[in-house]
């Protein structure tokens, strides 16, 4: 990569870190650069120390990088939090008069420039101008973004912000022209989208024909609820904030029974409350998609940080035995694809589908190709008129070879749709006899055979018969790809395996891959190696090493490279 820069905007909660980071990302993305951003924020509305980090390149990016090239510090006192432990120092932009600048700490008086532009609240816009100057990037797209963003607040606010941006830009050029700017020029347009994980999930929910969504606000899922609520009227779906997660999932199941495609999202603590409803979906064979956004637990844990600690929970949640689907996207593109797939598969098998993601994926944004809509269809798999028949003969739980019974909707003339959480007969009436019980358990579990046929294989990339195999799931996908590339540069034969579907588990394909590699490393954002345990259980092969991280932070590629090298030295 000719261009690979790393910029961090940091400051206290409430200072506009997210807004400024987003603004810079949008400008640079629009100007043809490729972005990968992620966030770290505290569970507070004011104070503390948050950051928004932008990696900027001339090629597609899949992961964040540790080493910083530029910090825009909105809160100078918090700057030590951003300071690298070792390695070269980044350029730092802080508020203040030029004369107080020292070394790489460059002062731009953005508070003063904002007041001169008419309002102290334009300070971050002046900082954005200065940041672009430091990046050697022109100002025009920022000026256009400011117009688009503030148009509804009136021409005065637009003009004031634009003046502040120009002033910050000009001040930097005037005083720091001797500093070599970082090189982030305008590139030919790539025509791609700048999409976050939650935006991808929400868009796929709309594309996937969700007609009813109910949820309860909880990080890192609130973005889905917000996006869908904003588009509910235009896209014609019902969105309701429930009184709790129990109500959310039961509303969804009621709506799904009525025939609406239904979805909800929550995090671990909320999912605990939904588990009862998950089992109800399994028993009543009501399709539903639950997006489970993980964050570090147990209990409230670290509410705004990231972890992959709920794999076993997702696999085993719910009392009793029933089939389920568990998908785990690794990036915004896959989040779109798997959300869409989960919605169709839940309807096909009339069973719950879980979409397992985490805070890191939720909040990461990346420059990604536009989703391909050609060939995408919403497949409802509802009963035909012949299957329903008349004269009240329809049986919701008719026994079939596939285990899937024709699904009619209430309100069909001459048929009643009877659904029960008790064990039931083919009509949905309560039963207690052993024979019917066994027939119904078998019927429900028979659906697993079809689900296994539709199962997504693990994605294997890199060298054949590798010396090193890196295995992961979920949001580590891009990070493992970059770590594998770094290891390959030093002459290793390296392969990467990413597992987008975790249940049913692709055990056979996984066994073959494991047997082809000399050393196998599982990399997981949890303490106990849940994916490694799942692989062992399902294949009988325990991968050699576990690289676990459970401090609430995502992995960086360099960190994985270092961990792999150090383990190999230990074993050498």
């Amino acid at each position: 990569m000719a261009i690979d820069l790393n910029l961090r905007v940091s400051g206290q909660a409430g200072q506009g870190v997210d807004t400024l980071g987003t603004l810079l990302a949008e400008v640079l993305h629009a100007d043809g650069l490729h972005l990968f951003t992620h966030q770290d924020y505290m569970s507070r509305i004011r104070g503390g120390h948050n950051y928004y980090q932008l990696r900027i390149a001339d090629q597609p990016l899949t992961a964040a990088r540790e080493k910083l090239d530029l910090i825009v510090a909105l809160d100078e006192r918090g700057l030590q939090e951003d300071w690298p432990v070792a390695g070269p120092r980044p350029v730092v932009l802080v508020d203040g008069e030029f004369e107080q600048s020292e070394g790489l700490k460059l002062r731009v008086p953005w508070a003063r420039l904002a007041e001169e532009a008419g309002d102290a609240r334009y300070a971050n816009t002046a900082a954005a101008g200065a940041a672009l100057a430091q990046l050697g990037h022109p100002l025009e797209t920022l000026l256009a973004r400011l117009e688009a963003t503030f148009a509804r607040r009136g021409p005065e606010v637009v003009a004031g912000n634009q003046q502040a941006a120009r002033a910050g830009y000009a001040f930097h050029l005037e005083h720091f022209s001797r500093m070599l700017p970082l090189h982030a020029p305008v590139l030919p347009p790539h025509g791609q989208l700048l999409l976050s994980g939650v935006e991808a999930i929400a868009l796929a929910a709309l594309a996937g024909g969700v007609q009813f969504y109910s949820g309860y606000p909880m990080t890192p899922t609130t973005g889905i609820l917000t996006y869908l609520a904003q588009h509910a009227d235009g896209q014609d779906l019902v969105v309701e904030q429930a009184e709790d997660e129990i109500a959310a999932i039961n509303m969804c199941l009621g709506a799904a029974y009525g025939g609406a495609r239904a979805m909800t999202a929550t995090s671990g603590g909320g999912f605990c409350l939904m588990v009862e409803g998950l089992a109800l979906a399994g028993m009543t064979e009501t399709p539903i998609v639950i997006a489970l956004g993980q964050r570090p637990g147990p209990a409230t844990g670290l509410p705004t940080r990231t972890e992959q600690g709920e794999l076993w929970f997702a696999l085993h949640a719910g009392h009793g035995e029933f089939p389920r689907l568990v998908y785990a996207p690794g990036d915004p593109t896959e989040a779109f694809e798997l959300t869409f797939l989960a919605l169709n598969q839940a309807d096909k098998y009339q069973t719950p589908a879980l979409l397992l993601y985490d805070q890191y994926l939720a909040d990461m944004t990346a420059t990604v190709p536009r989703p391909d809509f050609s060939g995408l269809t919403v497949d409802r798999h509802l009963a035909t008129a012949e299957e329903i028949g008349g004269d009240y003969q329809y049986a919701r739980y008719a026994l079939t070879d596939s285990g899937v019974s024709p699904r009619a909707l209430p309100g069909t003339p001459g048929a009643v749709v009877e659904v029960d959480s008790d064990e039931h007969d083919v009509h949905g009436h309560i039963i207690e006899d052993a024979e019917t019980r066994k027939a119904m358990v078998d019927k429900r579990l028979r659906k697993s055979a079809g689900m296994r046929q539709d199962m997504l294989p693990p994605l294997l990339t890199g060298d054949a018969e590798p010396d090193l195999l890196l295995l992961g799931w979920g949001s580590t996908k891009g990070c493992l790809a970059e770590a594998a590339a770094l290891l390959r540069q030093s002459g290793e034969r390296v392969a990467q395996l990413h597992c987008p579907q975790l249940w049913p588990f692709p055990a056979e394909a996984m066994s073959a891959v494991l047997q082809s590699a000399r050393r196998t490393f599982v990399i997981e954002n949890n303490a106990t190696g849940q994916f490694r345990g799942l692989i062992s259980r399902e294949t009988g092969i325990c991968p050699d090493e576990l690289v676990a991280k459970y401090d609430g932070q995502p992995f960086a590629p360099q960190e994985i490279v270092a961990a792999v090298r150090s383990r190999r030295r230990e074993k050498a």
Partner: protein
Amino acid sequence: MSILKDYQSQATTWCPHCGNFNILQAMKTALIELGLEPWQVCLVSGIGQAAKLPHYLKCNYFNGLHGRALPAATGLKAARPDLPVIVTTGDGDCYGEGGNHFLHALRRNPDITVIVHDNQVYGLTKGQASPTSPRELVTRTQPHGPQSEPFAPLALAVLLHAPFVARGYAGDLPHLKDLIVQAVSHRGLALVDVLQPCVTFNHLNTYEWYAERVYPLEEGYDPTDRAAALERAQEWGERIPLGVLYREERSVFGDDLPAISRGPVTERPRTPQQVESLLAEFEFAAAHGVAPS
């Protein structure tokens, strides 16, 4: 036009003389009077003796989880405003396990009917106190009687501006049938708390006990008088009023939500391509082409 036989379903498992039999009969006759066929009606229930009612009356039903009938009914009605949705629930199901949902259903006001079989005791689990049990009800799990005051569902419903608040009695079938007809016809959440003697586990609130106390609201009673309704809703002991205690015109869940007010969402399937227009928001426009190098 349906007749009683059309609603015939499975044999019941209730105790002989249970108040539920009359509630079931009142429900069937009310549905016939409303001109509804079994396929046109949807019952939603949770768990308990009352929640078994849908199994004994041929119709569409969603028999879900203990306490969760109200959110399921809310979701169903939001998706299918074309279907009359009737919740059959009990005092434990609706006021205990589902207490939070009851509170918020009253606030949200979906267009559903809620029939609460209120026998002031747990039947399915055999005789424990319920949220509406009197403090005098000594049970095997409450040897000193319940240590909480009985819940007052109708007073709470009036306080929260529920648009239709009524009390029925399982010992007065024609009156109860009439209340159910009115409740189903009413737009918005219609709550009918039905006093239901439990002949097996509640030896205090018997048919005889009720017969001495219940009275129909007098002619000329104004159910739109909120202060009077609040007073009647709390009347208990010597005299217990029956009838529609409170009525109010208020907005219904979905009135402000186009996806509900347009009719059943199931009649308007969406296509993935409809979403393509939203992608522009994520493209962001450049203000200039490539800068000269």
